[in-house]
């Protein structure tokens, strides 16, 4: 009998799972544990509107107080889960408390990776609302900025800093995935690609410059480290759960008897692609939270989504459905990269696995069907098959 559900992680995935349980009629106790002091909030705007100052802080709240109280959940905010006693079905809390459960949802997300030597005044990570507000306050002092890591987060931060008129250098040891389209400069940001950071140079305890692997030195008043994130599973080390890349689950998002995982922290087998995956995408947090709630109530359904993600940088909207393996085939389906408006397909083993839209949101949403249908790659070489779809 399911009477006590505990959800660890009070962000998008955890909150969505809680709401889905209630929507499906679960009327037992519901405990939502979050280590930040804030009610559940949304993260994608942090590196965009919050950093740019175009949104007030209140706008990132995921639910208003009324909706939260209607949820009928015990919200343990500012509480950190420190351990899991799977045999005793208890989540252990910092300070010595414990919460018992019949079913547990792990939704603790990810923690940003730090670089050695970056633990300095003037060096920032960006994951939480507090991180974003602090970083914004410092950007207002008009520092010379180095962003380390040219993934989506680093590129978004560089874009915001550049739009504030700051001098910005974006450093990455690898050519960025879309280097060809980005070219040598993205909207005035200096790019230093193919060169890693060898060390942070400090002066009086503050970061003063970044030295690259090729020996060159870039002066910096402020450094943002955006080199990816790791699943927040430290608290599960002694739980007995398999933690290879996140909480390892089956296709039902179940990690062990009565234990499920959702969101950035969850690794599961997606039968649509026949592959194990772990996604740090906003959309996945919602979809997986809903799927986990259903399975916890007995649905016994595989979670087989077509992943979706987006990024906004300057006036460019990049949106993608599916998966984009490094060895994938690539083909422009419509539009023209030269005009910064196109849609492209990615494929592997003769099947379309992903579609990407560059300033083409409507087009890429239509092309998504190719991924849903696992369309043969040859579909793309037959213009008469693609065009009606693209024009639909």
């Amino acid at each position, binding site marked *: 009998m399911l009477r006590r559900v505990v959800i660890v992680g009070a962000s998008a995935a955890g909150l*969505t799972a809680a*709401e889905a349980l209630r929507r499906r009629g679960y009327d037992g106790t519901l405990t939502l544990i979050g280590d930040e002091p804030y009610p559940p909030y*949304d993260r*994608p705007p942090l590196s965009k509107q919050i950093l740019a100052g175009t949104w007030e802080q209140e*706008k990132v709240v*995921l639910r208003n107080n009324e909706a939260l109280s209607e949820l009928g959940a015990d919200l343990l905010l500012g509480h950190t889960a420190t351990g899991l006693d799977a045999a005793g079905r208890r989540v252990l809390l910092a300070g010595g408390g414990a919460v018992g459960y019949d079913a547990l949802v792990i939704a603790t997300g990810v923690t940003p990776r730090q670089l050695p030597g970056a633990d300095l005044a003037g060096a920032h990570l960006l994951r939480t609302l507090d991180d974003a507000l602090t970083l914004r306050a410092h950007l207002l002092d008009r520092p010379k900025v180095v962003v380390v890591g040219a993934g989506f987060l680093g590129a978004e931060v560089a874009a915001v800093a550049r739009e504030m008129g700051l001098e910005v250098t974006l450093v990455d040891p690898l050519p960025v995935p879309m280097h060809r389209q980005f070219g040598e400069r993205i909207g005035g940001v200096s790019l230093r690609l193919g060169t890693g950071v060898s060390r942070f140079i400090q002066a009086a305890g503050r970061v003063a410059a970044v030295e690259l692997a090729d020996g060159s030195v870039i002066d910096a008043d402020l450094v943002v480290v955006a080199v990816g994130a790791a699943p927040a599973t430290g608290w599960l080390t002694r739980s007995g759960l398999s933690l290879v890349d996140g909480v390892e689950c089956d296709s039902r998002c179940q990690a062990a008897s009565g234990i499920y995982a959702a969101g950035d922290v969850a690794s599961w087998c997606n039968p649509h692609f026949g592959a194990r995956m772990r996604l740090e995408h*906003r*959309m996945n947090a*919602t*979809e997986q939270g*809903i799927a986990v709630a259903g399975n916890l109530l007995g649905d016994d359904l595989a979670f087989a989504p077509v992943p*979706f993600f*987006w990024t*906004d940088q300057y006036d460019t*909207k990049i*949106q993608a459905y599916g998966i984009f393996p490094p060895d994938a085939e690539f083909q422009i389906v419509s539009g023209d990269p030269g005009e910064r408006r196109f849609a492209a397909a990615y494929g592997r083993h003769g099947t379309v696995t992903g579609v990407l839209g560059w*300033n*083409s*949101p*409507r087009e*890429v*949403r239509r092309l*998504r069907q190719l991924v849903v249908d696992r369309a043969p790659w040859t579909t793309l070489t037959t213009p008469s098959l693609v065009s009606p779809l693209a024009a639909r």
Partner: protein
Amino acid sequence: MKVIIDTDRCISAGQCVLAAPEVFDQRDEDGLVVLLNPSPPADVAVDVKQAATLCPALAITVED
């Protein structure tokens, strides 16, 4: 049922169009949401609520 959209939040994901094509569309130029029917009939209520739930930008509010 009343549907309210906040285009300032919209990130052009198009999830609403996938969930409830009778009620939502996207602008051609930038993909922003277009509300086709602010008072949709009851037979699409489930789809509209699904659209609001799935919207990754929380741009859709549904009032009963």
